[in-house]
């Protein structure tokens, strides 16, 4: 393998994958390496942790095609400290040699044959979504997912399609976030009835590298591929059945409150230090006649708080307890100034939504006393 490249191109390439390669100290040392593949006019960078793989490529002048693997973070750090515009790479006798204005570098690596084989997905039958929307949506739903492997069926984000929309759903079984975004391509029945689950860790990796340009999504039985030229991200899928969550979304509520989002966030934060440790409970009363909500908390060690805010409350007088973390995470992820909080009683799911963003739904369960 031999070729010369703009240093800034090499940095762009390695930066996409270096996090994945260096994130976990794996028992397989080669997973800390980046696979470099030189082909006509391109240098490809590949990294994997066996759960997800990222590959990207940059332009360059290739003299001898070939491949090699080198420690990713070492390679990345070193490139950052050079100030040469051009860097040439060459593999000689099992080492990677860098030639640049500053001098030479020899990096010890491992042969490319030892690198795990990355599954190939055929790029047919995919669909397009806006990278910007997709990224935002994914951010909104990953917060509800704990990724605990004790329950594999909720260890990832559910992807499914309904009409011309892509639905993303995350849950830890105490709360659930659902967001839908428009599918751009014409092909409507792409995922079809299929419900696929992408491990939440891989989604977080995805969030780290996707940009706002359009993104193409393909999938097979066992993998999903996200393409944002020139980068491909391939993740394994969780082989489990996501719970049928639509069934538990209530349609009839007893009480609905419309309240200023920032005010509610402040009030809950104010009450939270007095919640019980480990339970994190805050008690919320809905008072339609007085047009207000009362948030209170009590902790035998720290004290108690009772805070009121103005709200339009419809329906009957009602009250329940929530884990303040769960409700705050929902509120801070909603887009819009006014939030509507709909409840039934102290043992049924409650719904948080804003009028500005009908595509996002946050469902949470109360704490039962």
């Amino acid at each position, binding site marked *: 393998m031999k070729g010369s490249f703009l240093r800034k191109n090499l940095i762009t390439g390695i930066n996409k994958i270096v996090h994945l390669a260096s994130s976990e100290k794996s028992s397989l040392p080669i997973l800390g390496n980046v696979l470099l593949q030189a082909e006509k006019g391109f240098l490809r960078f590949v990294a994997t942790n066996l759960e997800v793989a990222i590959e990207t490529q940059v332009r360059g002048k290739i003299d001898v095609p070939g491949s090699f693997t080198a420690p990713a973070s070492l390679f990345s750090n070193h490139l950052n400290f050079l100030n040469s515009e051009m860097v040439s790479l060459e593999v000689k006798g099992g080492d990677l040699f860098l030639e640049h204005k500053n001098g030479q570098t020899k990096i010890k690596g491992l042969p490319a044959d030892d690198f795990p084989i990355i599954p190939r997905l055929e790029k047919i039958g995919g669909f397009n979504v806006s990278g910007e929307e997709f990224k935002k949506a994914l951010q909104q739903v990953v917060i509800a997912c*704990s990724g605990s492997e004790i329950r594999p069926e909720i260890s990832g984000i559910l992807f499914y399609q309904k009409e011309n929309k892509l639905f993303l759903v995350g849950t830890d079984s105490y709360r659930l976030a659902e967001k839908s975004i428009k599918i751009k391509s014409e092909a409507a029945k792409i995922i079809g009835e299929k419900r696929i689950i992408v491990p939440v860790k891989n989604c977080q990796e995805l969030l780290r590298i996707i940009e706002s340009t359009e993104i193409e999504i393909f999938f097979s039985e066992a993998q999903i591929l996200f393409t944002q030229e020139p980068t491909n991200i391939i993740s394994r899928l969780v082989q489990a059945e996501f719970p049928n969550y639509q069934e538990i979304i209530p349609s009839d509520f007893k009480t609905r409150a419309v309240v200023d989002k920032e005010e509610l966030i402040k009030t809950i934060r104010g009450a939270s230090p007095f919640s019980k440790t*480990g339970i994190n409970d805050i008690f919320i009363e809905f008072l339609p006649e007085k047009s207000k909500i009362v948030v209170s908390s009590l902790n035998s060690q720290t004290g108690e708080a009772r805070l009121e805010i103005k709200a339009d409350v419809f329906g009957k007088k009602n009250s329940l307890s929530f*884990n303040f973390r769960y409700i705050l995470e929902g509120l801070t992820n909603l887009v819009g100034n006014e939030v509507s909080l709909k409840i039934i009683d102290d043992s049924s799911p409650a719904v948080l939504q804003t009028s500005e963003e009908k595509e996002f739904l946050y469902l949470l369960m109360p704490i039962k006393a």
Partner: protein
Amino acid sequence: MNNRTIVLIDMDAFFAQIEQQHNPALQGKPILVVGGPGRHAVVTTASYEAKRLGVKSAMALHQALQICPHALTIIGNPDKYIDYCFRLLNIYKEFTDLVEPYSVDEAFLDITHVQRLFGTPEQIGRKIKQRVKQELDLTCSIGIGPNKLIAKMAAEWQKPDGLVIVNPEQVPKIIWSFPVEEMIGVGPRMKIHLNGLGIKTIEDLAKYPGYMLKAKFGKYGEILHQFAWGIDTSVVDPKSFDQIKSVGHSYTMPKDVTDLELIKWYIYWLSSKVARRLEKEGLAGRTIHLSVRSADFNDFGVQTSIPEPTNYPQKIASVAYELFLKNYIGKSVRLLGVSVSNLSSQNQFQLDLFYDKPKMAQVLNSVAQVKNKYGDEIIQLAMILLQNKKRWVRQKVGCFLTNREKGHVFAENVELHR
């Protein structure tokens, strides 16, 4: 805080003394009290006659019998000892209400403010010993010092039937000549670490830079350094025992086990015992701890916290088993222990979107009522109950686990860490 006077009362070979007192034929003879029969039985207490020959507590029975072949082995009776424990506490409480039970045979007393009533520390010490001897015919060793640490260490210096008084001005020099492992808080592993740093005596530890101990061992290093200077600010807390901090069960296998299925079975079995205990106490816990001792006495303990407190047997068991699988390196297992800590009362719980917890709670409540009436074995996890498994367990470990024979469950230790 200043000028406190703390007493530690440590019963001499508590279990053995009680046994000897109950059976005159045992008096003056070396006896070994064990947890249960079986090849792996462990000596819980050796009488002074046996201790003099070199038997130590927590020694394996077969080892102890090698040292002391003519010793008599007695299977312990925990209920009897606990009864004695309460009777002792009642005696102590006549001197002060500041009594903190420290273990079944040890208690701390804060006598700072009762000296006008009962006399000098030495007089109080003698009075306590006299009362214990008169009323229960037992001897104890007493340590008196300016704090709990010194009192506890002093009680060790004159045994049996001792009384050691350490005056504040003797601290910390009086403890400095002892090897570092004699200090509270330094176990065999810590000893190795400290010896590695060239710290052999408590004086070495005191003179070692505190910040370096902190850097190496964290907060614990800081505490040890303070201890080495004879500083211990912890108070005698009569309520420390009222609050259960963790609930655990452990089990020593009659035979070493490598079979994963069987290990899983044991983990489920222990977990369901822990769950039952929690439920009886009205508690649920968030942190699940698994301890494993392999046949070569390599111990490891691992723990994890789950998002919300539980006392469901399946939940505890599945988490514990997962911990086991993640950390197990294939050695044969001698002891397994499951415990749950980070406890809270069970009256509030986060509801689940997909799982009807109140319903499950009702089911478990009914199960508990049935168990209360007919005994714990009447309803069990299917995993534990499967007859073929049971037969298979018997075959493999040679022990019986049926209700009828449950008295023969070997060396089962019930711990309630408070």
